[in-house]
């Protein structure tokens, strides 16, 4: 219950800060503070009645709401799939890496620093170019490189979105597991005769999850920005289309609020799981 209340308060605060930010561009354009307050009032009113909102796709206003939901779920699907895939792949690879000798791990870590530095734009470009190159060589089209009209693509945007988060998670997991395995309990359980893999899988992993939880918020924050780029580059008919077709404060605010909702649910649930574990540990 405490978590539910906390998440609700946080959600309200997020909405308030989004509304406050949404008035700023007008302030910059008109340099007029009173019109800023007007704008904020407008945005708050239209957030309370989202059914009345309209966007302007081809010079003809249409109601935002039924139109908006489908692309919204599409975008969220891409985002969450990429996030989960990146996390689980990184976990599996991190386990495999931890069984390697220390010198190999040092090489891997240095390589990861290099990969981590790739700008996201470069990653997207490389994926695009790789697909075209592969098609030219083998005439097998792995996936469409751009979405056209109604047809939806999943593989490429998910791939583009997951590469960098995967590298971040992977490096973080290796670093955390290494730190964990220097702690006394690791040596103790090894001394008791438990196998290294067993301790790694069941104890070390569990102890890294709290830090990973906080880290994953930063990763997701980064991913939402990337989603915008990916949708733009691959011409995907997702939420960014609405963001860009109509750059008004109200639309902006509604879309940002809608983007925030699934993550509140997601992280609220994860925090709930973590708190159950903590309570059980406190009881034990």
């Amino acid at each position: 219950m405490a978590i539910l209340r906390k998440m609700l308060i946080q959600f309200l605060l997020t909405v308030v800060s989004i509304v406050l930010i949404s008035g700023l561009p007008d302030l910059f354009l008109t340099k007029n503070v009173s019109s800023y307050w007007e704008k904020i009032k407008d945005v708050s009113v239209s957030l309370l009645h989202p059914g009345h909102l309209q966007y302007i796709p081809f010079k003809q206003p249409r109601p935002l709401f039924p139109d908006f939901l489908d692309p919204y779920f599409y975008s969220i699907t891409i985002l969450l799939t990429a996030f989960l895939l990146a996390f689980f792949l990184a976990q599996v690879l991190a386990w495999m890496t931890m069984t390697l000798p220390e010198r190999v791990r040092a090489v891997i870590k240095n390589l990861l620093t290099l990969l981590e530095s790739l700008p996201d734009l470069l990653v997207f470009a490389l994926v695009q170019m790789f697909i075209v190159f592969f098609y030219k060589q083998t005439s097998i089209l792995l996936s469409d490189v751009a979405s056209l009209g109604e047809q939806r693509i999943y593989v490429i945007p998910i791939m583009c979105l997951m590469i960098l988060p995967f590298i971040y998670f992977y490096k973080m997991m290796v670093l955390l597991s290494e730190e964990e395995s220097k702690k006394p309990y690791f040596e103790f359980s090894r001394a008791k005769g438990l196998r290294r893999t067993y301790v790694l899988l069941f104890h070390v992993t569990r102890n890294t999850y709290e830090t990973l939880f906080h880290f994953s918020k930063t990763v997701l924050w980064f991913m939402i920005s990337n989603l915008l780029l990916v949708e733009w580059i691959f011409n995907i008919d997702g939420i960014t289309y609405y963001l860009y077709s109509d750059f008004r404060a109200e639309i902006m605010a509604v879309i940002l609020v809608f983007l925030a909702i699934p993550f509140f649910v997601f992280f609220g649930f994860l925090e709930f799981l973590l708190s159950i574990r903590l309570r059980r540990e406190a009881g034990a």
Partner: protein
Amino acid sequence: MIRSIKFWAGCIVLAALIGSSLVHQMVFDSKIKKVPVLYNDKGEAVKAAPLPASPDMPFGTDRQGYDMFAKVMQGAKYTIPFAILIALQRVVIAFFIAIPYAFYFPSWARKGLEQLLSSFYYVPLTIIAIFLLEPVLVERIAGEKEYFTYDFSVRIFLEVSILTLLVVPMVSVMIGNMMTAQLKEEFIQSSQVLGAGKIRIFRKHVVPHLLPKLCIVFTQQCVSVLIIFAHLGYFKLFFGGTDVCYTPFCDIPPQSISNEWSGLIGEYYQNIFAHPLIALGPVIMFGIAIYAFNLVTEGLQTHFASGKRKRTYKKEEKEDTIPAGAEQFTFINEKGA
């Protein structure tokens, strides 16, 4: 003295980028070689711009025949220092916000503030930055006249402060939590017991322990600013303003004013399929700069970690050197008791 190779490698790369850019300005007056047509030895035209990469011009030339590498080098002296400036502002402002947060706030207020500020975790920075900077940076048109809403220096000031202030809340919560964790340490409690005031604890205990961490936060922020610059460039919001051509049939893409890197990305990224190297040149330079900053971060981390280890070594040595001679004590039976 920092003995990490990674740290110095990163520093040298960054210094080389900025330095060569400055030399290019001072010695060559920022002139960029233009090769619209390539001739062979007999004076016959072989190829027209855009030229592919050659040892002479590692990134080739653009459609107008300008040497891409020179363009990129020219831009380095704007992009990297401004990234450093913005990151520095973020860390310094956040540090000063974090002081009252850690020292004077009761824990319920701290929790509330943390919730308020971490609501920013769900608002993607790139979208907000595009949304806020668009009216500031893009040239507008009214009737026949093209105009910017703000002067050049005001535009730069606004962009720097917006990019700073958007991230300050999150960084200050991070630094504030570092400080509160520090304040819970045992040695702080013992110095409190011995009568140290808040100012003394701050100066003698918190600052020395926090500075290394702040350096690392700073280099990480440099990376994040560079990434934002790249994103903004892709969406044609260039550092210092976007010069849009509003005349009909104008096929010149929006131009950046100073060849800084985000401008180059925006100008050339659409060439990605036809001339990948032209499009990717600026992006690769972003990658090199980010890698250099990451190397500096890792170098600092190993340096600070090893520094701690050295200190504990010294302590152990001291314990070992307690003279263990026979003069330290006398045998009871020799005393004759």
